[in-house]
């Protein structure tokens, strides 16, 4: 197990180097030039050339990448092109924290509501409760943010007047409710459907019949024999979605005026803000590597049959 984790960890920086290089190449060879965007319609070739030189953009792409890696290893991720004079670290740091908190709130909501709903649906398999939970879940899963957000805004802000319409105050602030609900809805639906299907499948296994035949209490059957096995695929989904915590949610964040990473990422892309784009790619790639590792290690605890040698 230890050797396995070590091997995975050694591969991580190599993977990140590759992700960084691909990002750099795409930036370099893709259309659009950050200097042109800053200059808008004032395209004095001499000025564009001067600014490109000042930003180090005139160097060959591999040299630029080498300089970037060198600086990054010293903890310097550079300065934003768009937000002039501001460092990438100061721009990203706080926003990642905000986005992760919001993502976490949504994730907790989807687990806390999704799994019990799935269990209930499985319990009443084929009956009207099952159908309504699962079709309700499907409905919420398919509803885009630009429908749920205005609806919740109308309900909570304009009619009931109990929630502020925008802003951010952390996990323990009323303003987290609506965005977390909106981001959590698809998660609730997805996890509910997945848990239901998984539980239904496990319920038909022989060992469950054996457990029941032994005269075990139904709750005990569920807790010890069904859930533990049924949760493996659900756990995978939850684990992998940990990575999305840092990538932010563009539409929801914009709708509710939340200073998260999503909006910054979008603006950075359109402004060809290479330092921000590269830093975000690396961060999100690292988050996926980490989430995968967590899932793999987690399996070991849920299902002792799984071994890594």
């Amino acid at each position, binding site marked *: 197990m230890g050797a396995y984790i070590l091997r995975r960890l050694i591969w991580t920086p190599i993977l990140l180097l590759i992700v960084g290089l691909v990002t750099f190449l795409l930036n370099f060879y893709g*259309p*659009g*030039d*950050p*200097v*042109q*965007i*800053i*200059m*808008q*319609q*004032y*395209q*004095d*070739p*001499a*000025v564009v050339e*001067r*600014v490109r030189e*000042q*930003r180090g953009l005139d160097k060959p792409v591999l040299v630029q990448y080498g300089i970037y890696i060198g600086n990054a290893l010293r903890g310097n991720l550079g300065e934003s092109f*768009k*937000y*002039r*004079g*501001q*460092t990438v670290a*100061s*721009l990203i740091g*706080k*926003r990642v924290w905000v986005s992760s908190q919001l993502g976490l709130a949504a994730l907790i909501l989807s687990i806390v509501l999704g799994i019990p709903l799935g269990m209930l649906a499985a319990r009443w398999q084929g009956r009207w409760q099952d159908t309504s939970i699962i079709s309700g879940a499907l409905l919420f899963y398919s509803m885009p943010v630009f429908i749920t*957000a*205005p609806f919740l*805004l109308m309900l909570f*802000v*304009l009619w009931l*007047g109990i929630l*502020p*319409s*925008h*802003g*951010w105050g952390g996990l323990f602030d009323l303003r987290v409710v609506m965005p977390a609900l909106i981001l959590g809805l698809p998660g609730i639906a997805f996890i509910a459907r997945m848990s239901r299907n998984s539980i239904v499948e496990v319920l038909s296994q022989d060992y469950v019949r054996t457990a029941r035949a032994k005269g075990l209490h139904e709750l005990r059957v569920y807790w010890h024999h069904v859930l533990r096995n049924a949760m493996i695929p659900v756990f995978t989904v939850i684990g992998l979605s940990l990575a999305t915590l840092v990538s932010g949610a563009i539409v929801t*964040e*914009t*709708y*509710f*005026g*939340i*200073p*998260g990473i999503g*909006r*910054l990422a979008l*603006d950075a892309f*359109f*402004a*060809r803000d290479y330092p921000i784009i590269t830093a975000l790619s690396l961060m999100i790639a690292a988050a996926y590597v980490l989430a995968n590792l967590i899932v793999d290690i987690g399996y070991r605890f849920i299902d002792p049959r799984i071994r890594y040698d």
Partner: protein
Amino acid sequence: MKAKTVLTILMALMLLLVGCAKQPPAGGGELVRLGDEPSTLDPHLTSDVDSAVIVVEVFGGLVTLDTNLKVVPDLAEKWSISSDRKTYTFTLRRDAKFHNGKAVTANDVKWSLERAADPKTLSTTVDTYLGDIVGVRAKLAGESQEVSGVRVIDDRTIEITIDAPKTYFLAKLTYPTAFVLDRDNVEASTEWFKQPNGTGPFKLKEYLPGELIILERFPDYHLGPARLDTVKFFLGGGTPMVMYENDEIQITGVGLADLDRVRDPSSPLSKELHTATPGFQTSYLGMNVSRPPFDDIKVRQALSYAINKDVVASTVLAGRVKPAYTILPPGFPGYSADLTGLRYDPEKARKLLAESKYGADPARLPRITLTVPGALGTAVGLDLEAILAMWRDNLGIQVDVQQVEFATFLRDLDARRLQMYAIAWVADYPDPQNFLDLLFHSQSINNQTGYSNPEVDRLLEAARTEPDETARFQLYRQAEQIILEDAPWVLLWHPGEGYVLIKPEVKNYLLLPIVVPRYRFVYLEK
């Protein structure tokens, strides 16, 4: 009148004056609105409206624009211009102070201009706004430490020499690139602009990127302190109409989708609706005059004559824009209301097309592709759809639309690769030179249509140095008339803030077509 009475009145007056000085000005409180994230708060790096709206409130320069858009004194109380019209001598105000109380001196001005021109500052606007000053280009090229055209005479006197007589030079000095900074403040840290020591009517009280900006009144402001205590800008976005109706913000623009509901006389909101004057900008379809079929002036004119902009503006765009018939927007210095431009005349359009070298049969016309900037698959504007339909109906011309993401669009525009493109020009400073010379002089780098007319060049060059304003504007008028006739652009709109909702307690919020310091005039009346 007896001496005692006079004395009493005098004392009463003095008390009143003392009272005024001590008490905060009436109408204070907090104004709250949405704002867009500024790219920077460093004036010398400012090149966009989102940054400028904050920067002009916190900082200032030698001169500024008043609400009538005239160049007026700011840190300088007066100036004189030499007889060759190349040297400007500014006298600084005695009471001009930075926010920390330090007096503004001529050395601060010199240091600031040299900092803007320092290649290490990475300013992208310095060439445009300060490039006329002798020595700025040498400093930018790294050939000189100083800017030779800026000379300190004494603490309160500074002399600026430019390379040729240019009447519009003063207007350029109102842009943030020419603003005066405090050297100690700037050299204190790399992100100094998050705790700036400016000279403007407001201090930056709080800046949380992505969240909010709070401006606070600077009580010693030399042009008269603001009445508001604070101005709060939410930067994170949100849903403006909901926030306005929920009393979370006091000012918001109204989009096309909400306009009918807000305009409905039975809605209480209709009483809070204000119409903004059109902004100082002109949107247009540029045509590359060297690419067929736009190499024929008659094709270009026909396209302009074939569209009924009045109808599109009033119906499709619900009156949120003003149809453009001139290049200079209404109200802009040098604007000539009597220039008629090319007005809707489908008969004439068909006739012109028939007379062109391509003939009346649209099938013989080279394919036309209109490139529009856009992102995330946004729809082509309804106005463009209507115009394309008019070309089809009136001339039988089918124009293809190609949507390109903005960064790519700019690259192709710069390389003059686009045959026809949709874009707008926004005024940087209130002088006709900013539109006509920059966009239509054959040697200008901003002339993306490749338009060239020696007579226009001659008029524009004469206008650069003409000292008399009336004569100068007359030259621009003649140039504009010729350009309109040559039709390198299909003029579209002078867009503006359109409709704006303002809460009744907010008084004297001026809807101005250009970025100028405006919050110091606002007050609240509960």
